[in-house]
């Protein structure tokens, strides 16, 4: 729901290639174990995003 919004905001702030990892909406009003499951699902992607080099257009 907010992914396109996040991409536009990143672009506006000069980070067009910012890696964005998403989970399904909503994140409120759901059981805690579902929240944990969503977190587990994206853990590797978040780690990859944090450790990979930024895309060329963002360098410098």
């Amino acid at each position, binding site marked *: 729901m907010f992914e396109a919004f996040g991409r536009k*905001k990143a672009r506006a702030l000069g980070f067009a290639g910012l890696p964005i990892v998403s989970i399904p909406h909503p994140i409120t009003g759901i059981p805690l174990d579902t929240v944990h499951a969503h977190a587990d699902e994206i853990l590797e992607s978040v780690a990859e995003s944090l450790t990979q080099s930024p895309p060329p257009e963002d360098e410098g």
Partner: protein
Amino acid sequence: MKLASTRHEVAESPLELLEYVMERGWGDGLPVIPPTEERVAAMVEASGRPPEESRGRIPHLFGDATIEKIAVNAAMAGCEPEYMPVLVTAVDAIFDPIYNLPGVQGTTNCIAQLIVVHGPARGALGINCRENLFGQGWRANATIGRAFRFILQNIGGAKPGDTDRSTFGHQGKFSSCIGENEEASPWPPLHVERGLERSDSAVTVIAVDPHIMVNDAASTDGEGVLQSIASSMMQAGSNNALFGGEMVVVLGPEHVDMLVRDGWDPPRIRAFLYERGRVPTFLFAPANLERARGRRDDLMAQEDLQSVPVVDDVDSICLFVAGGLGKHSLVIPTFGNTHSVTRKMDFSFTD
């Protein structure tokens, strides 16, 4: 005057202009006035500021709110040039961190930005403070509020259904601008309570939820009227119950007459409403009460919590007088995580 904006060639037909504007996401669905070079220049000149002067970058997309860009949106909304100082002051006000502009711009909540104008500017600009002030029929109210929405949408980038993610929207997102009815009360107007002079013109900006009308034509004393207002503040599902913040109470002139007659003044009214407007905890869904307790420092420490105040503290009831005859007042909840901001207009008006 040198203007920097891109020029667009558009047919003179109002329908073609509307289609052109809507295709580019600049409009609100209603016909617009062409922001011609001449019209924009007149707006800039009336602001008393140079066109390139920036008042700040508006989230989400951080467009630069220059005087010229404000003027283009004002022209498109149908403003008269002399309305520009209201818009520039309102733009300045929303950059105050207590307003929480990044939060209110993209939220799923139903938030409109309400502009309240105080002081001589109201008369000089023809801003309605009386009957039907939130409704149709007054150009200044209609077009200033509309221009402010255009500024947030076109400069700030809060596009409905895209970067503006409001679940329901809000009628006030078309336009929301009123004047305080200072003449209907012996009390100091809001801008004077907040440290300005009565002769100053000022703007207050508030991030509001939908309004709740209070109908009390039966009470014969001020306390009865206040009890009706307090009970209208008690909504367990409101942002204010969950997050505190500030709530707006607009007193109608007939209710004010009764309150003045019975010796009430704003500090006593706020104290009464703060205590009587608390939401009993049994009205909350249990999980929502826990959510409130987790977000509010004032509730977290209380073990035997019986009721929840709907604002941060007694001074967080934004109280002023407006409207016409009739035994009505308004309660206007807010985004919760926000406080209103009042700014003096850097411009002199003669009423």
